[in-house]
């Protein structure tokens, strides 16, 4: 193995030798520097590899013949190897990325780069305090040199502020070191640590200065204005060095020096860190400039790390794992994002739509955003999970709250940015061209993000259980994007079918039901994808990712697997929703609600794991502590997905704007993920109480109001898909109510209704999607009379609405019947009556849907429209056949579900006699009802045909029109504001109160963020005052001044 001293030696040597190279030979200088950096990267990588695989001993380097504390010594351990590897890598690839920029600035810039990296390497490896100070100085001077690469007022003033600030910091550091030397009589870290620090009076002041200097290097809120100016004005490549290399080294220094600090100072550092994390992210929401936004993000991430390190005594041995996983995510993602920002060169994130001109960059951008926000499968995900778990374990609930709220703020602005990039309307003509030396680092870092994710999860005791196969298949589709839709669709269907075929036997009944909804339902909706032409890029990886998540939910045995799958599903569906038209706003609100919900789930799982030996799902069923809290957190988390009232505002837009086959995916299938979660929760935890009131009772009302409001709002929509989306909200209210009944019949209702809802909602969304496909509008009043043009779609919608409305003899009635029996049995009459009422309101929108689109007056523009594409009809008719089967033989659906529920709710089951269902209260025979209705219908129909056999077919305006004639179909088709009188009577119930509430929350957060951002006025003097005031305040706090 190469001695690590050569890292320093080579870097120093090359940078000195660059001085001898002629003025014109920047190329040679550059290549030499890169070679040097490559060498150092390899050296540290080799050390790291050996540490990981061979578990070798820590290596010490002694610079002179004396042993420490009489000489300076360096150390190469596993941590050092990792950190130097990261620093060298960013030096190498950052240098490569900036190659032509540095070359243009002259060879001295290469020297600055090499000095920076060299300095940081030593900062990491050294065990000597003064040495640390010296090399930190060298690095910061090198950084200042790099900052002023861009010769404009902004960057020069930023460089000046940087020098001033680091000057103060160095002064403090030096002061601290001097005092320590005075009291401890040594500069060697290990040596000082062996002494009894407590004993030395006055040493605490010394350590305070030392630590505060390091903390200031991390740019804590609010004394970080100087850092932000650097991020926003320096070259992107330099910012990436600063954010990734410099900050990484600082984090390591903090870890190294932490043992110096007494317990209370450690907590103070942690508090500073978490405050920085929350507030920087809060202010990040207000940013429009990408570099400055990334600056806020960098500062916040480092703040989080400082917080984690600060409370390492609480977290214990896992600190290292958490820090490393979060840091690696940050390191890779932030450099990548800074580099992309350097290529895009847009001052406002709104203009990032230009990124669409380069697909590769767009994909990389997405990967980095996900890595940064801690979504799976990237390492940050596991870091955040472990962090929350350990904070919960030690009951630091406020910390959990702070971590999650800060992360949530970060998600807000990162995904807004991503949304703008993928979907914003601003069209900029320039085609982005990235040079090859800029692309290579990006690609390598993106790959490293995946690799690191896999590595980190393999280190984790439970993460290694996660089934990566579905995710791998989904990602695999990213590599066959060049294939036409037909092949990809077939492959996707085959993959899902094969997965189901090989696995379903290992599922229990509940899992089979939901796996069937997820996978068979998924296959059905995928069939509609054959209707698309071309390549349909960016659809299959995400669709399959969503299904991978759904499958993961069903299969999850640990809470970590469950959460992983939940996040995966969220990501996939986010992109599917983002594909729709005008989706940018809706997709953002979708991801925000989903991630907010996911964080609640995370917190819930964290609380659940307190005092438990493992994290299997089963721990939910024997919880002693905080049970109502856990139940509440998890229930609300799941209810964001089922879009219960209050949490529903993301749904209508998201589902309505999606594509023809995506709407059924997200509406008929995805929502069931929330149902599955709730079922799991109820099964595990049973009834929970707040005081005397049962949670189930509260949820029953939530479900009832959701159903009522969902249905009522659906009745007043003009947009067909929005109508169906609101109807989904209402239907999920039914399911929630059914579950909250906590009885056999209630659950039977809920689960069978979930299945039925999947069928009719998929049917309706596909049929309406087919109509919209042909008509290119979603407004119902612009349609009309399409029954003659689209008879097959009409039949689908007809059957769909009959099932939806629950009118016998079709299978929808089963749900209504069961539900009524369950209500009477449970004696929740008021809820039952309101729910029945909302079921009747469903008639309103059902009729409106079919009337406005298929009946009434055909429009002139639609004379030549064709029936919906064949492949969109195929799944509809497959579903239709199943509906007919279940209608004829209701026990083929209900009996297996009832049997499945027997172990959980043995009382009150239905007795079956053939197709005759009997409960304690009533009875129903689906088959005879069907026969009677069909029989009577046939006879009456025969009679009518006999009477009216020679009826004259007439055209659309042959109507008795008060002796006049209609003139235009548009003015004759009564469809707009169809339920005007109804709206007049009870429209006040559907005033957009909840939407307004969330808007106000949004505005409030942004205006708070605005207030705080104002303290950064760009003035060096005020930044100085911030720093001094900060030090003073911290001093007073730590020494009891307050």
């Amino acid at each position, binding site marked *: 193995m190469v001695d690590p001293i050569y890292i320093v030696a080579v870097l120093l040597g090359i940078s000195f030798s660059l001085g001898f190279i002629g003025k014109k030979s920047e190329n040679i200088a550059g290549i030499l520097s890169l070679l040097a950096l490559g060498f150092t990267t390899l050296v540290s990588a080799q050390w790291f590899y050996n540490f990981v695989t061979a578990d070798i001993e820590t290596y010490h380097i002694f610079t002179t013949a004396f042993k420490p504390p009489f000489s300076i010594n360096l150390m190469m351990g596993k941590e050092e190897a990792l950190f130097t590897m990261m620093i060298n890598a960013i030096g190498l690839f950052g240098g490569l990325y900036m190659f032509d920029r540095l070359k243009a600035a002259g060879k001295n810039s290469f020297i600055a780069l090499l000095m920076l990296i060299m300095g940081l390497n030593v900062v990491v490896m050294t065990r000597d305090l003064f040495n640390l100070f010296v090399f930190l100085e060298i690095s910061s001077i090198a950084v200042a040199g790099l900052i002023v690469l861009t010769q404009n007022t902004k960057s020069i003033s930023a460089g000046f502020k940087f020098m001033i600030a680091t000057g103060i910091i160095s002064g403090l550091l030096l002061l601290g070191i001097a005092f320590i030397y005075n009291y401890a009589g040594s500069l060697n870290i290990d040596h000082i640590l062996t002494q009894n620090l407590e004993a030395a009076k006055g040493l605490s002041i010394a350590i305070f200065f030392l630590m505060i200097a390091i903390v200031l290097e991390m740019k804590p809120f609010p004394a970080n204005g100087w850092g932000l100016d650097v991020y926003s004005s320096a070259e992107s490549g330099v910012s990436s060095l600063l954010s990734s290399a410099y900050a990484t080294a600082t984090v390591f220094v903090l870890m190294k020096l932490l043992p110096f600090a007494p317990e209370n100072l450690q907590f103070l550092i942690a508090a500073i860190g978490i405050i920085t994390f929350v507030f920087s992210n809060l202010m990040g929401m207000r940013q429009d400039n990408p570099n400055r936004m990334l600056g806020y993000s960098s500062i916040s991430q480092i703040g989080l790390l400082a917080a984690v390190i600060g409370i390492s005594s609480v977290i214990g041995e896992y600190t290292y794992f958490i820090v490393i996983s979060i840091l690696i995510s940050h390191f890779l993602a932030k450099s990548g994002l800074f580099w992309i920002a350097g290529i895009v060169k847009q001052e406002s994130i709104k203009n990032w739509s230009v990124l669409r001109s380069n697909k590769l960059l767009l994909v990389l951008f997405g990967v980095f955003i996900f890595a940064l926000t801690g979504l799976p499968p990237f390492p940050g995900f596991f870091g955040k999970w472990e962090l929350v778990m350990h904070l919960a374990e030690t009951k630091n609930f406020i910390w959990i709250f702070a971590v999650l709220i800060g992360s949530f703020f970060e998600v807000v602005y990162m995904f807004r940015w991503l949304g703008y990039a993928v979907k914003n309307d601003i069209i900029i003509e320039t085609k982005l061209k990235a040079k090859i030396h800029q692309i290579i680092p990006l690609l390598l870092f993106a790959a490293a993000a995946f690799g690191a994710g896999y590595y980190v999860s393999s280190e984790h005791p439970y993460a290694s259980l996660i089934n990566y196969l579905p995710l791998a298949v989904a990602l695999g589709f990213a590599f066959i994007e060049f294939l036409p839709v037909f092949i990809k669709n077939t492959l996707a269907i085959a993959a899902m079918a094969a997965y189901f075929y090989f696995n379903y036997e290992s599922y229990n009944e509940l899992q089979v039901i939901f796996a069937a909804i997820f996978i068979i339902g998924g296959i059905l909706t995928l069939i509609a994808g054959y209707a698309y032409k071309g390549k349909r890029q960016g659809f299959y990886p995400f669709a399959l990712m969503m299904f991978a998540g759904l499958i993961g939910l069903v299969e999850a045995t640990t809470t970590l697997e469950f959460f992983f799958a939940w996040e995966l599903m969220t990501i996939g569906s986010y992109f599917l929703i983002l594909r729709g038209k005008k989706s940018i706003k809706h997709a953002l609100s979708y991801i925000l609600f989903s991630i907010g919900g996911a964080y609640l789930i995370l917190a819930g799982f964290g609380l659940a794991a307190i005092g438990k030996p493992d994290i299997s799902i089963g721990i939910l069923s024997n919880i002693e502590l905080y049970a109502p809290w856990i139940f509440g957190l998890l229930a609300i988390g799941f209810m964001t997905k089922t879009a219960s009232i209050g949490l529903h505002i993301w749904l209508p837009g998201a589902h309505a704007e999606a594509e023809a086959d995506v709407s059924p995916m997200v509406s008929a299938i995805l929502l069931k993920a929330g149902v599955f979660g709730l079922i799991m929760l109820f099964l595990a935890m049973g009834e929970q109480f707040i005081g005397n009131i049962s949670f189930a009772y509260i949820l029953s009302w939530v479900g009832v109001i959701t159903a009522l409001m969902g249905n009522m709002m659906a009745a007043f929509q003009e947009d067909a898909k929005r109508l169906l989306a609101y109807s989904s909200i209402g239907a999920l209210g039914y399911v929630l109510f059914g579950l909250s009944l906590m009885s056999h019949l209630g659950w039977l209702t809920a689960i069978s209704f979930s299945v039925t809802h999947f069928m009719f909602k998929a049917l309706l969304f596909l049929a309406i999607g087919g109509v919209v496909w042909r008509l290119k509008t979603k407004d119902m009043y612009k349609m009309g009379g399409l029954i003659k043009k689209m008879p097959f779609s009409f039949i689908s919608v007809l059957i769909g609405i009959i099932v939806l409305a629950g009118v016998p003899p079709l299978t929808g009635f089963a749900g209504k019947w069961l539900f009524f029996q369950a209500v009477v049995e449970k004696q929740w009459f008021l809820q039952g009556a309101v729910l029945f009422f909302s079921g009747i309101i469903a008639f309103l929108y059902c009729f409106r849907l079919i009337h406005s689109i298929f009946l009434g007056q055909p429009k002139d523009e639609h004379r030549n429209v064709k029936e919906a594409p064949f492949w969109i009809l195929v799944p509809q008719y497959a579903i239709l056949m199943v509906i007919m089967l279940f209608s004829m033989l209701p026990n083929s659906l209900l009996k297996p579900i009832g049997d499945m529920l027997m172990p959980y709710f043995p009382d009150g089951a239905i007795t079956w006699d053939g197709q005759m269902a009997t409960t304690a209260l009533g009875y129903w025979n689906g088959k005879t009802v069907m026969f009677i209705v069909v029989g009577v219908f046939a006879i009456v129909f025969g009679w009518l045909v006999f009477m009216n056999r020679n009826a004259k077919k007439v055209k659309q305006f042959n109507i*008795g029109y008060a002796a*006049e004639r209609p003139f235009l179909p548009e003015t004759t088709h009564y469809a707009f504001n169809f339920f005007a009188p109804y709206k007049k009577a009870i429209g006040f119930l559907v005033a957009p109160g909840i939407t307004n509430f969330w808007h106000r929350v949004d505005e409030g957060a942004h205006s708070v963020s605005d207030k705080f951002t104002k303290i950064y006025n760009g003035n060096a003097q005020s930044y100085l005052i911030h720093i001094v005031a900060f030090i003073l305040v911290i001093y007073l706090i730590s020494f009891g001044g307050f």
Partner: protein
Amino acid sequence: MSKEHTEKRIVYSPEGDPIEVNPLQDYFCEDLPEVHKASSIAILENFRNWARSRSLWVLGFGTGCGAIEMRPLMTPKFDAYRYGIQWRPTPRQADVFVVSGYLSVKTLKRVIRTYEQMQGPKYVMALGSCTINGGMYWDSYNTINRLDYYLPVDVYVAGCMPRPEALLAGFDQLKKIIREGRGEGYNKYAEEFAWYKANQKKIIKDWDMPDYNW
């Protein structure tokens, strides 16, 4: 009404292809009426005629001043309900069209349209001298003289205006006609359709509807 609605126009399909719309052809059924033979089974047809005569549903369409004489029919004093006569609001469900008084050309157009929208067998009862020979408007530039040139009239009730008693007598007469199987005015209309249409078109200059309004 304004003319542009009856002229040809171009609309564009969702794909942007032009579609030519010819309102008269495209919105209205263009077929001509057919003659419907009475059933050859005499007893059946007699039974049906009895039912038709006992259930006369009148279209509530007052064309002229005579409409005011129709209202008292439903009051306790005359009570036409007892003869199975009642008013229907839509031509689709009505059997008898009572043309109550003078007809301007403009109204005639609506009357023809409405008459054609009724389902056969259907009957026309014309009130007052105006429908017989023009009455006091015999030399007006805008009022027709003889209704039977435009529609097949089954019963005329003379007078200016006829009182409700006369109307009842008219209904009685109509019943007799129907019972005897002579209430085939609508078949006559179909048989001599060309002649009726020519007469109608002679005075309705801007003919902006199909030849037969189904």
